[in-house]
């Protein structure tokens, strides 16, 4: 099992969610985060006073998939979240050692 963590542009969330649902994923969790990468921040200007906002809002999406589904899921996220402009985000993949569904007690691949 793999956990895919994707940092994406907030306005791409709906596209990514429906694309992942289309390939059969049944769940995910997200949170609103702020950060910076190569995109850096942006500038706000009030009557000539410039304020550099270092951290820009992003969505952090986490989904756990079976090993076979991993490549498909990553490809799907890349396709749905890509705008071609700086600041599209990143994807991180890590191993998951165990998964359990609380209601039924199913484990690992059955649980996700």
């Amino acid at each position: 099992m793999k956990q895919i963590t994707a940092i994406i542009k907030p306005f791409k969330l709906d596209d990514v969610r429906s694309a992942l649902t289309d390939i059969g994923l049944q769940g995910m969790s997200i949170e609103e985060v702020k950060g910076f990468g190569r995109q850096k921040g942006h500038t706000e200007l009030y009557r000539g006073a410039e304020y550099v906002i270092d951290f820009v809002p992003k969505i952090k999406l986490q989904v756990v998939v079976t090993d076979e589904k991993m490549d498909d899921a990553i490809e799907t996220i890349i396709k749905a979240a890509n705008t071609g402009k700086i600041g599209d985000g990143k994807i991180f993949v890590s191993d998951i050692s165990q998964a359990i569904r609380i209601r039924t007690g199913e484990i690992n691949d059955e649980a996700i």
Partner: protein
Amino acid sequence: MMKPFNSSPTKTTIGKPSMLKRLISSTAFLLPSIAFAEDSINGADTAWILTATALVLFMTIPGLSLFYAGLARSKNVLSILMQCFSLTGLMSILWFIAGYSLAFGEGNGFIGDLNNLFMANVTKGSISGTIPESLFAVFQMTFAVITPALIVGAFAERMKFSAMLLFSTFWLFAVYAPVCHWVWGGGWLSELGVLDFAGGIVVHITAGVAALVCALVIGNRKGWPQTAMPPHNMTMTVTGAGMLWVGWFGFNAGSALAADESAAMALIVTHLAAATGSLTWAACEWKKYGKPSVLGSVTGMVAGLGTITPASGSVSPAAAIVIGFAAGVICFYATITIKQKLKIDDSLDVFPVHGVGGILGSLLVGVFCASELGAFSGYGFGGDNASIASQLKAQLIGISSVILYTAAVTWILLKLVNAITGLRVNEEEEHQGLDLALHEEKGYDL
């Protein structure tokens, strides 16, 4: 605060025996008809000035207070509202006690007298022009309220509340009342025929210059300009700005002190200058920074209004467009210069908007009051002035003397208040925010 050519509203005020005597001796043969004319109250004039008075009060509370409060950080929002609200109360009482008498009492060329302390001579029957004197006094009171309230923007987020009250009290008597007397109370500037219909000099230059001196004496906010101090609520600012635009109709058109053609012309030029100023400022931003901002639009509007104020009784609609445009461009660059080049933390930009606008308008009226400029022709020179050159000279004398006087006296008053209460909250209180530190309240509990 007077119609063009009228040297002083006090000269038509009864209840001032010596003035009346002078009038009688100089026009003895006309006495009966004048006496009757002097005595009559005009209902239309009275109704309009009653309305205008409400509009000008509306400019301070809640117009200016919301405009300013939105520009502050959330930890200081209440302190701004509190300062504007308290000043409304305090300045009104002080105006009643002595301000009105010092500004509009006969006195000498420099200051009025103390014959009208506690408005003792303002009775139900006393008349000023064609309106009750009580109405003239309260209309003027609303100007005395907003002028110190404008200064609040300069020392926002760091001045002690007690120091602010004390400074504003001294300032009303030592700066506002005398300058008001010079220009509107029959003082030496009105003798020179200086044109200031609604307060470009009396209100905006005094407030703007005092603001600059306050910012310099009290010093920058801790961390400014390295730390970001953006407005905490732009919607509040735009709401207040809208109220200012509307209220300004009372400020300028009310300054005709009558419901007449002067009032109507003042209203349209006021409106056009506001519109032009707003669009111009936004256009400057668009060109310089790539995007027009909401704050720029409303600030340009205020700049246009402040700039047309001294000219609003003397110029044509076409001239108002020129004045609004000049206000938008010049106040825009003045704001950037004060902030970015000179690094002066006039926190809410009182000087570059009101001070510079007031100076600019008080100069431009010297040109556009002339009656031989085609579509840009105005409605005549002030006093004995007969050319643009002589009018401009009078305006320059008025502007420079008021700048110097205001700057010097404001500086002295700040030093005095500093010795009595101290001007500034301590660093910890400033960091905490004045709302909690000085008033034990929070603006928001989100």
